[in-house]
């Protein structure tokens, strides 16, 4: 199997790597680049724990090949805060205790960021359907939805 040379942008930084043709972007991020914030909960696109944004499009990184990242802009959880300044969603997840075990949290934050970018003032129903691709087994989603609502309010005011 011949490696594929990829040149891409991750969280604003230029990154180059060599990957196998069947290697997923999730595997590249976690195993080659040390970006372990994206989690593998299923590997089949059913849990959303590996969510990243590729060219402004929310995707499961387990359903993207590493080779496909060539020339793309990728955003992961590691790039969500600006220096020591947490993103309002990160801050609100903390304040509302919108996480228990926290394994789904990076995926939820990325998905919620994408949701608010496309719909800054979502209803509860829009939030619930917008985040339906992210599984959480601990919280019953209640505090997650509230944290997203609160963050949306903060971000609108900003």
């Amino acid at each position: 199997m011949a490696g594929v040379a990829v040149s891409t942008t991750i969280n604003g930084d230029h990154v180059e790597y060599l990957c196998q043709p069947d290697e997923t972007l999730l595997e590249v991020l976690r195993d080659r680049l040390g970006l372990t914030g994206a989690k593998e909960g299923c590997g089949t696109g059913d849990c959303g724990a590996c969510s990243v944004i590729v060219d402004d499009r929310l995707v499961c990184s387990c359903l993207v090949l590493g080779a496909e990242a060539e020339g793309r802009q990728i955003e992961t959880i590691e790039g969500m805060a600006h220096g020591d300044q947490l993103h309002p969603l990160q801050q609100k997840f903390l304040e509302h205790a919108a996480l228990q075990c926290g394994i789904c949290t990076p995926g939820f934050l990325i998905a919620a960021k994408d949701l608010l970018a496309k719909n800054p003032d979502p209803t509860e129903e829009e939030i619930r359907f917008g985040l339906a691709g992210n599984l959480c087994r601990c919280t019953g989603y209640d505090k997650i939805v509230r944290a997203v609502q609160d963050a949306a309010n903060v971000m609108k005011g900003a």
Partner: protein
Amino acid sequence: MNFDPRYSGRSFTSVGTRPIRPDGVDKVTGRARYGADFNMAGQLVGRILRSPHAHAIIRKIDTSKAEKLAGVKAVITAKDLPDLTDGDAAMYDILDNSMARTKALYDGHAVAAVAAIDARTARQALKLIEVDYEVLPHVTDVDEAMKHSAPLINDAIFTEGLEEKPVKPSNVTKRTQYGHGDVHQGFGEADFVVERSFKTEQTHQGYIEPHACVASVNPDGTADLWVCTQGHFVYRQHCAQLLGLEASKLRVTSSEIGGGFGGKTHVWAEPVALALSRKAGRPVKLVMTRDEVFRASGPTSATSIDVKIGAKKDGTITAAEATLRYSCGPYAGMWAEIGAMTAFACYKLENVKTVGYEVLVNRPKTAAYRAPSAPMAAFAVESAVDELAKEIGIDPVDFRIKNAAQEGTRASYGPVYGPIGIGPTLEAVKNHPHMKAPLGTNQGRGMACGFWFNFGGQTCTDLNIGMDGSVSLAVGTVDVGGSRASLSLVAAEELGIDYAHVKAIVADTSSLGYNDMTDGSRGTFSSSMATISAARNAIKILRERAAQMWDISVDDVAWEKGHAVAKGEKHGNLGKLSLKEIAAESGKTGGPIAGHSELVADGAGVSFATHICDIEVDPETGSTRVLRYTVVQDAGKAVHPTYVEGQYQGGAAQGIGWALNEEYIYGKDGRLQNPGFLDYRIPVCSDLPMIDTQILEIPNPNHPYGVRGVGETSIVPPLAAIANAVSNAVGVRMSHIPMSPPRILAALEAERERFSR
């Protein structure tokens, strides 16, 4: 240890507030390290070959081709994990489950494993392992497995607990019985008797993080294990025993854990990872796929339950009886027994009898799942209680209040209750605005009660005071949902300092004494008790140091609100000394200041909850939607109320999933049909409403702050609450969980058929 665990009414400064958790920032930035997020130099990838057969003799395993594949560093079978269990039956089962020895007992049972330089090579190597199976007839259904004609899963098992010793082996491992009084006489006194049969399908805890570990065994007999677990000390014991290591030479570090709910309470693939590392001489990372998690970790029991309850016209229950059959996978468990104990625990009963049958099936080894065994029993009992209330013509809440257990009631499982919370949760529900809210067409409201025991157990903490006056708290109970925040609050409370100056961590097995695992709702209950004890020990030293600094007797030094205070008139001119001031001088007053605690936290106190659920049913499709949900539960004292609410909401959501859609589906071939999150349907965000909570605080007399465990009970009532709501919405009594749309539609059609005749 002179620690007095008794409750003392006191006012709180820190406990009961809602600060941000100490591990929070790491978790929202992706920095927190879970089981699969850790790597070691020279690490190999481990993968496991699993049986495709539900029941088969392993005639021969040929690993030679796999061993020859370039990049493969070790291939192991059961031979590489020799039996060192020395007659310990439970450990032998764990060993056999981690690597099948003579028979594959379920679809997914491990039969061999490889360690290779990368995942691709490891996958390739698995394909080169040749296993010669002799396929045997299998049985996956709990009722089928009890029949005399059923394939026998273990011919060395003879049913325990029968009056006469059986002469033939059986899939029924054990019969257990609980109760008191005379049910025959009790039913004779009843004006109304309801008798129903129920089934519940097998569910999985569904934690989002698959089992993952990195194992490293050195030639000198030392070893390290990084692993996601609910109890790293327990994993150390298991692995040390199964691998023949000295426990103290195996350091187990618990990673952040991405959910467990009972499923990470004993080892699964960890001994395999260690055995691979031992053979390869290199660290091995072993991460289960989701498919493996479903097929080969520990789901809950499938059950079949008969319930009979009788009552007088005035609503007094005169007798209650249940027969409970629980599947346990291919290894004996005690799941039916727990079901038999919990079934009627909410009620005051003169005559009660429960019988449990523990049944072997060709499914994965049953593990604990949040208040294990209680939800299924509660589903059956609480459904029947609603039916009985309907027959008598009494409001279901009033009926339950009339028959609720209270202090002094003999529990159906034996002892007499102390102060308990079932009555108050029912009264709270009766008065809750939810109960009065209007309902629309095809909508119904149901309620149900639930019980769980709660545990304490062995617990150890270290509390170290830095020279800057900050406090580090090392605990040994894995934090599954915010307990580091709660325990920091407790340390702050006891020491009288600000929460911001306390940092709690979960210590590894070499840094702290033994701790039981985080199960049985014990994490915050037990570790808070040990933290209080450790803080009190530290305060004793702080007082001694202050006495030195003042040059007075320690008897004259008291500890108040984070300060040493000199008592007595002769010391009237001495100001207070803060913890920080004392800590700053500690190098000159005798060295580091710390408090330690090793104790058994017993007296956890039983727990009760009552839930209310509104549901809408689409009569044309059988589809359901949960419209509103309320949890009322006793917390004793909520240390961090937000995380208590979180436990209530999370348990309710799991219960809702169990009630409506989650189930293991086996084909006729004995293979699991839905080992993935697409077809094992846990609730998604859009499936649920907000889940309202009401925390009651009835202090636990056996904890200094009155704390009770809160983690598990919330999963007990939802199955029945939803079944009762469906019944009230569309008039059909659902006796089979999950109440999936095809089952509800079939019930509705049958009902229409009945009426049209």
